[in-house]
Structure formats: C-alpha cells, structure tokens
C-alpha cells in the first residue's frame, strides 16, 4: 500500500530523514515512534506530498507521489497534532468545508456529515461553533474532518495530545473501529500504551533513521528485554537511596529502563531467575526489607527507550 524506498531529506546541514525505507501494508495499523525531532513529522509531510524527498521514492498503491500527488492525496485523510479547525465556524460548517476541499460531492453531504457526527457522539452539537467545544470534543471533530471523504489511508499525528481520559478512551475505540474497517493507518503518539494495544507493527525512528521495526513481540525480542521485576520495599531514607542507586546493579547503565525510589524498584532485565536472585541478594545485603515482588513482561516504553536511549532530546 505505502512503499517508502530509501528516502532522504535534508534542510541545509540538518538531515531530517536518512535512507528510510518502510512498507506499510493494506489495512495495517502502523505506528511510527521516535523522540522529538527524530523525523516522524518530516516522514508524514513527505507522504502527504507537502514536499519531495531529496533521494528515494514514495509510492502509494503503486503510484509515485512525485509524479501524481493529487491522486494520492484523494486517498489520504490526515489528523494533525493541532486542532486544525476554524474556531468561528460551527462543527457543521467546518466539516462541510473540509469535505468540499477533499472533493466530496455536495449531494448528500449533510447526511454524510450527520453520520460522522453521530459516530463521534457530537450530533447534537453540530450547530455550535468550535470555539465553544471542550478540548476532547475538538479532538473528535478534528478526526471527523479527516473521515468525510472516506479515505483508505489515515495519518494520525499525535491525535490524542491533551485529551482527558474519557475522550481518549472514546477516541481509542474509534481507532479500533477504523482498523476493523480495513483502513490503513499510520499513527504517531507518545502514549505508548495505546500504540502497544493498537499497532500491528511499530517502526522506531531516531536521528532520521529506522532503528527497529516489527510487531511488539518482535521488537521485544530484538531488544533482548524480557520482563520487568517490580519490588516493593519498606521505605528507605534519601541517603540510602542515593547509596543503592549508585550500585552497579541498579545504576543507570545496567538498569537504563528501570527506576528506583525510596519505596520501590523497577528492574528491566533479560533473565528472570538470575535477575531476581541478584536483586533479592542485593536488598538483603543493604538490609532493605522486601514487601512485595511482581514480575511483568516488559512494555513498549522500555523497548522504545532501549532503542532510542534515555538521553534527553530537543
């Protein structure tokens, strides 16, 4: 469906995307993860034909975006990170406008809009101006505006930023439903729990390059991380915390994706038995009373941090 072949894009001295190749299949929910400035938005902008790569090719349904951008744009719906709506206009007027610029015929348009508004749970607010909507409602209309022309490909660029848990849960079910409808979805988000639950495959991009790709299980295997051991212990002093945090076992290098505080410790490792015995021995040596031990499989956040490292980004 979407074939990205060895694309590169530079802005002056900055190489935003470097030799990137992706292959997103029809009906697939593909999440593209990466720190800020990793090249996610540039990739989406290239896919949307906002500008062209310096090198490489992008083909959608076999058609090159460089050769026929408008044909491809007809198949695409984008939900940007911003609430890309006109605040003075009502939901109905906004949706009419976005439908018309996406070449939706005027015939039966209002019925279509009504259907989408019902789908978003906003049918009774159709005539209210967007400025009077809550953040969650705006997000839903933001998504609705991308659906009216019934695109087969959807780009969601952090669509749930700043949304309350109720709205996020609602939107999450919409994503699931769109996926069930067979839409091809390219998704970016910093809510990794959502990504883990929704994605068929995940691509991790850093410094413009694809550093890992696959299903979550495949990524976990690639990372070598297996489980996280969560140990609850009797509260310790700050001095003691400082002391144990510096130990080779719990220090940032060996436990980069875990944490330790005055009441608990999260250890991410690759060998459950060995890791567990070392931890129990460590706490006994430091006279820290363990209250509870929980072993869970590693989550996407730990896998993501493994590939992108923990250093702060811009």
């Amino acid at each position: 469906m979407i074939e990205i072949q060895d694309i590169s894009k530079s802005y002056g001295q900055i190489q935003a995307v470097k030799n990137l190749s992706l292959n997103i299949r029809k009906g697939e929910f593909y999440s593209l993860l990466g720190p800020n400035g990793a090249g996610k938005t540039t990739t989406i902008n290239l896919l949307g034909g906002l500008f062209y790569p310096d090198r490489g090719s992008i083909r959608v349904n076999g058609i090159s975006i460089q050769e026929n951008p408008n044909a491809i744009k007809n198949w695409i719906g984008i939900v940007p990170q911003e609430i890309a709506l006109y605040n003075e206009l009502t939901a109905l007027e906004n949706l009419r406008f976005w439908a018309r610029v996406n070449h939706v015929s005027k015939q039966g348009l209002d019925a279509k809009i009504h259907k989408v508004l019902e789908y978003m749970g906003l049918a009774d607010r159709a005539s209210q101006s967007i400025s009077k909507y809550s953040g969650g409602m705006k997000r839903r209309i933001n998504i609705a505006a991308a659906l009216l022309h019934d695109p087969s490909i959807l780009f969601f660029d952090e669509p749930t930023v700043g949304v309350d848990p109720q709205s996020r849960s609602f939107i999450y079910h919409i994503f699931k439903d769109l996926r069930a409808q067979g839409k091809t979805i390219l998704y970016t988000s910093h809510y990794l729990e959502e990504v883990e639950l929704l994605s068929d495959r995940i691509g991790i991009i850093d410094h413009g390059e694809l550093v890992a790709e696959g299903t979550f299980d495949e990524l976990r295997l690639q990372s070598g991380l297996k489980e996280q051991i969560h140990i609850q212990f009797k509260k310790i002093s700050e001095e003691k915390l400082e002391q144990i945090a510096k130990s080779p076992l719990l220090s940032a290098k060996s436990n980069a994706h875990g944490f330790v505080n005055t009441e608990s410790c999260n250890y991410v490792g690759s060998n459950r038995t060995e890791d567990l015995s070392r931890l129990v021995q460590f706490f006994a040596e430091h006279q820290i009373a363990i209250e509870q031990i929980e072993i869970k499989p590693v989550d996407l956040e730990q896998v993501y941090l493994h590939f992108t490292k923990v250093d702060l980004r811009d």
Partner: protein
Amino acid sequence: MLEIAKKDLLRLRKDKKALFLSFILPIILISLFAAIYGGVDGKAESKPQAILISDLDSSALSAEIISELKKEKALSIQMIDMQTGKKEVIDGNKSALLCLYSGFADSVNQGKKAPMELFYDESKSMEIGLMQKALLSTIMGFIGQKGGKAHVQNFINQKYADMPEDILEEINKDIETEFSDGGGSSSVSSELTVTPLAIKQGIRWGLIQAVAGTLVMMLLFSMAGMGNSILEEKQEGTLKRLLFSPISASDFLYGKMIAALVLAFVQISILLLFSYFVFGLDLFYHPFALFLMILTTAFACSGFGIFIASLGSSQRQVESISTIVIIIMSAIGGSMIPLFLMPAFLQKVAMSSINYWAIQGFYDAFGRDLSFSVWIIKPLVLFSFGLVSSFLASVYFKKRILKEYK
C-alpha cells in the same frame, strides 16, 4: 479555490470585531474626515481666522485699514495692545498679531514702505498661510491704492518742481480723482477675482478627499488583515491540513485572493453607498470610471494584503510590517494629508503608493472630465500594482511559508 474563498468570507461574517473594523470604523472615519475637510453640508465654510491687531499709529488711515479688515469674512479681528498681544501669541492662545507701527499713515501717504509687522505662533504656520491670503488681499489692495497715489504725487512734485503751481495743482487734482475710491473711469482694482474651474460646479472636493483617502487607507488595513489569515492558518495547523488535501498551494493562495477581492469590492461599495446616502456624494458622475476604480482599487489593495502576509513569518511580524507600510503609504499618498500641502519631492514620492493612484482616480471619477486616455491611467496603474503584488505574493508564499513545513 472557491471553497477557500467562501470559507474565508463566512469566517469574516462571523467575526464581529473584523466586521466592525472593515465597515463601521471606515464609516466613522469618513464622517470625521468629511467634517474636517468641510464636505458634510456641502458649503465648505470654515471658521474665520482670529487675528489680533495693535494700532500704534492711531491714525485715520490705520483706522480705515482696520475697518476694511473687519469686513473680511475670513478674519476675526480683535484689537489689543502690543505687549499683551505678543504674550497671547507666545502662550499659544492666539495665532497672530498684526502691528501697525507709528508712522504707518505717513509712510503710506508718502508712498514709502509701510511700517507694520505680523507676529505669529510658529507652531501654527499652516494656519498663518491661510490667514495671509485674506490679510494680503485686503492690506495690499488698500496700501497699493493709497500708496500709489502718494508715490505718483511725490514723483510729479519732485521731478517738475519748476512747473507753475497752478499746473501742478491741476495734475494733483487729476491724480486724486484717478486714485479716489471708485472714482475715475480708469480706476484699477487691486482685487483678484478667484473662480474655481471645473466642468461641473458645486463638486464637493473636500468630501471626495475624505471618502477616497479614508476608504483606501482602511481598505489597505482590511486587506492586510485578510492576508494575515494566511499566517493564522499556518499557525493553527489548518494550512498544513489543506496542503494534505487535493488542492495546491496556488489554489490556497488564489482562494485567499478571491476572498480578499470580494471583501474589498463589498467594502468600497458599502462605503461609497454610505457617502451617497448620507453626504450626497454623486456616484453617477462617471459611473464606468467609478466601477473600474472600485475594481482596480480592490485588486491593488487585496494583492498588497496577500503580498505583505507572504513577507512575514509570524502574525505579529506581519501586523507590524503592514501597519508601518500602510501608515507611510497613507501619509505620503494623500489619505491623511491632502497632497497639495506636501513638499514637491514628497508629491513625487507619493506616486509610489496605492493611495495616490486610487485617490487621484476617484477624483477623476467623481468630478473631473478627462479624456479616456488620461483617466484610464489610474485604474491601469492600480491594476499593475495588484498584478505585481499578487505575483510576488505567490513567489514568496512558496519560498517562505511552505518552506517552514520542512
């Protein structure tokens, strides 16, 4: 493209503040400027200029000249002693003080330079310029008559001193008759008859200046605001979403231009209709020229608005740039101050502004009777302004605004 234009006009219709700035504020300003330029009641009468006079000569002649000045409608005379008068001018309470010094009558009667002086408040130079016109036409006419007679008599008496007395007396009598008020068939009047020259009498140029000047200035502000909506769309993310849809960057820009053009056309039409119904501005003097002027002014101003927007990288930056450029253009182009009050070089610089061509074009359409080849120049220049600025806007839009998505 049309969807973009329709959406922008719909947004404008819902934005009460923008509507006020686009329509109500210009109406208020036109009314204000029309009142200033004397175009409201069509009589263009102004308040008489107040002037203080100190008569240090206290002669019959000085009393006579003061009495003549009091008859002048454009002047309001107040007698005062010199010191108090000077203080009044220095304090800014009065604009000018005319002093007729001792020996005034003798000098006039002897045909010599009359000792008098006009003191004025330097901060009111413009007002003094207007006052001088009324003062000079009365004083110089009076002195010319009296002084001329004395000068001729002196000349005859000195040159022909040897002439018998009875002949000299006869000549002096003839001179007296010739220079007496209204006497003599060949008496020369010092008054200059001033007649406005226009094909149609009673054209209210003050009103035209107020309407055209304000209209163009406010239109430029509205169009700059419209242009600014490009950056607003960029900032809000709607531009990016639009560029993902199957419309091109050019479609987006042309859509904006169409919306701006429609708004400009409606704005000019409403302001002119207001001037027609409220002030009686004659819109049907040269309807075709007026229609062409509305169209080309709207095109030039909308092109300007979009061009200015394409230069900036943020809304605030564009607001600042456009405000400065519009104020400068309006100041030199004749929207704020009539061109004739400006120095010659500024009158030439004015030709680089949209305001100049639009105001001159509206002058043609409302009151001048020029041949087609002459009046068409103004709409053509405005059309060229619109064409060039639209082209530059499209180049800069792609170069600057789209580049920022990279």
